[in-house]
């Protein structure tokens, strides 16, 4: 598996897309910090970018990489290598290289800005951790979609659709249902609905840090326990882990049964 991982990783490192991605984050970080000169504002903008863009790029990269390396995968399948290690290796190669672009691209400008001396370091590291989680989750979901669809166009379509659903439509439906059922107690429902969408989950983790004062304005024991203590933080991280593990598990199962 590690050999395949290494190969995928170096392959991606050589691809220009990784550099474009890295360059984009570098540019974003530099513009935010050095032209804006306001760390709080930079962190908020960064949050919006990470929550929307990281899943999108993870999805597209994952699907693209799977379809592009299909011939190589078929070649590998002819060798005495375990199927799960082929796909896991590829998956890890994609997500690790994407995560590295993210961390380097955003980290370098921040380090240059003097992040270690500012107290925003925790907010910033949380952002990066959430970004890494999102990369892993969405590349895994993308691999799942690609594994289930032989047709490239269909695969891409479904992947984009999935991103659109989770990033935008889900929140819309969520909001509508909250307003429709506003006569009922909704605090548990809203927290559960948050947990079921990795993007919402990451957003919650970040607003726990950035907007805690607004969150504590709501009167409700469940909310208070969730947002007021470290309980929310721990549960959110566990859920994020589950969100990584489940799609990865499906990659393993699906790849074993798939007929090439």
């Amino acid at each position, binding site marked *: 598996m590690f050999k395949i991982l290494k190969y995928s990783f170096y392959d991606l490192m050589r691809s220009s897309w990784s550099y474009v991605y890295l360059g984009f984050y570098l540019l974003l970080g530099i513009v935010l910090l050095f032209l804006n000169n306001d760390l*709080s*504002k930079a962190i*908020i903008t960064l*949050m*919006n970018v990470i*929550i*929307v863009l990281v899943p999108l790029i993870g999805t597209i990269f994952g699907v693209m990489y799977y379809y592009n390396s299909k011939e190589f995968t078929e070649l590998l399948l002819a060798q005495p290598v375990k199927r799960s290690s082929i796909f896991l290796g590829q998956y890890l190669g994609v997500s690790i290289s994407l995560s590295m672009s993210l961390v380097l691209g955003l980290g370098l400008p921040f380090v240059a800005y003097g992040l270690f001396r500012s107290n925003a370091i925790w907010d910033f590291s949380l952002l990066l951790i959430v970004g890494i989680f999102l990369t892993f989750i969405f590349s895994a979901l993308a691999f799942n979609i690609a594994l289930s669809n032989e047709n490239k166009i269909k695969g891409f379509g479904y992947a984009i659709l999935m991103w659109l659903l989770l*990033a*935008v*439509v889900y*929140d*819309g439906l*969520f*909001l509508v249902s*909250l*307003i429709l059922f*506003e006569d009922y107690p*909704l*605090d548990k*429902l*809203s*927290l559960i609905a*948050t947990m079921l969408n990795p993007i*919402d989950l990451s*957003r*919650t983790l*970040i*607003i726990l840090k*950035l*907007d*805690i*004062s*607004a*969150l*504590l*304005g*709501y*009167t*409700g024991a469940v*909310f*208070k326990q969730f947002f007021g203590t470290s309980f929310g933080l721990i549960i959110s991280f566990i859920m994020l882990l589950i969100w990584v593990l489940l799609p990865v598990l499906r990659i393993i199962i699906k790849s074993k049964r798939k007929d090439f």
Partner: protein
Amino acid sequence: MKIPFCVLFVLISTCFAAAKTITICKAGCDFKSIQTAVDSSKSSDSLFIKAGLYKESNIVIYKKSLHISGEKGTVIDTQNHGYGFSVEATDIVIKNLTIKNIEISYTKEYAAILLFKSYDFAIENVRVDNAFFGFLIQKSKDGLIKNNTISGDGKAEADSGNAIHLWHCENIKIIDNDVRRMRDGIYLEFGNSSYIANNYSTENMRYGLHFMFSNDNTYENNIFEFNGAGVAVMFSKRIKMYENIFKKNWGTASYGILLKEINDAELKHNIFEDNTIGINADGTNRITYTENTFKNNGYAIKVHGACYDNIYSRNNFLYNSFDLSYSGKLNSNKFESNYWSNYTGYDLDKDGIGDVPYRPVKLFSYLVNRTPESIVLLRSLFIDIIDFSEKVSPVFTPENLIDNQPLMHQVTW
């Protein structure tokens, strides 16, 4: 001519002779107990309590102008029994003491120092530990409360009192005090024309500073942190609030300032940071908010009904989750020339004023008011999209609630 002069001389010399200093200590002084010293003193005497622990309570001073002072290490332990000092006298001074262990009662307001109908008083450098009420000052005038430290240990609002409580008082100066872990830090009930400055009020269960039916007061340069609400100003007129700092008042009913039924007040140069709600305004008229900074609050300003003729100008609104939440119509309130960190307009003529008006009320704040649980959707892309569409064509938010001259740069003062 000579005789009146002699009389005068005699008068003055007898006066000076009368104003003597009485010392109190465990051994070798004029008295051992504070109460007996007080009883045998005359008006305008000075009592000096030397260092040591005095287990006394309910020390009554009745119609005697005394100057009571202690030194470092003078401790009066009331042993959870009644008041510390109970005073009804004019021209009274109490300073340099520690009073501790005030009895908690559900029927009586036991205080370390109770002043009743006292004029021209001064309480300075008094430390009250484990207080129920700190200083309870009733029907008094022209006093100075300076440099005191009062701390309590109450668990709930019901079994704790206020650090400095004025009732029917006038012209009191409350300066440089440190009040913590009480119900209210400083409470003015029917307290008029008073001046409150440089105090530090923290961890109080209810309010850091509380005005009720109190007019013409000024408070400035105070710091209010971690209180239930920083300051509550209710049913009062003409309050001036300058250069105070309101920080980290977190919770479901926590505010930097709670304004309720107040008129003609002025807020200037205050800083609101990390509060759940910076200012909660309900039934306020003719208030000017000038050059305040609201930073990282949940809501910078929450305006409820019945607010008329309030003017918000030259304030900084920085990175609040919501800048403004508004109920009802605009009602002749004005938002003009503020700096909004969320403003995305441009300034083509470079005059420092944005060319596009700013709408401080987001649709989402309207939604959160209606369905509080939707707060979990804060900063979601979908919410940004509906906020944007509301900004372009307002349907739910008051259409004329706009800052027509949003500033491009932070206001400095």
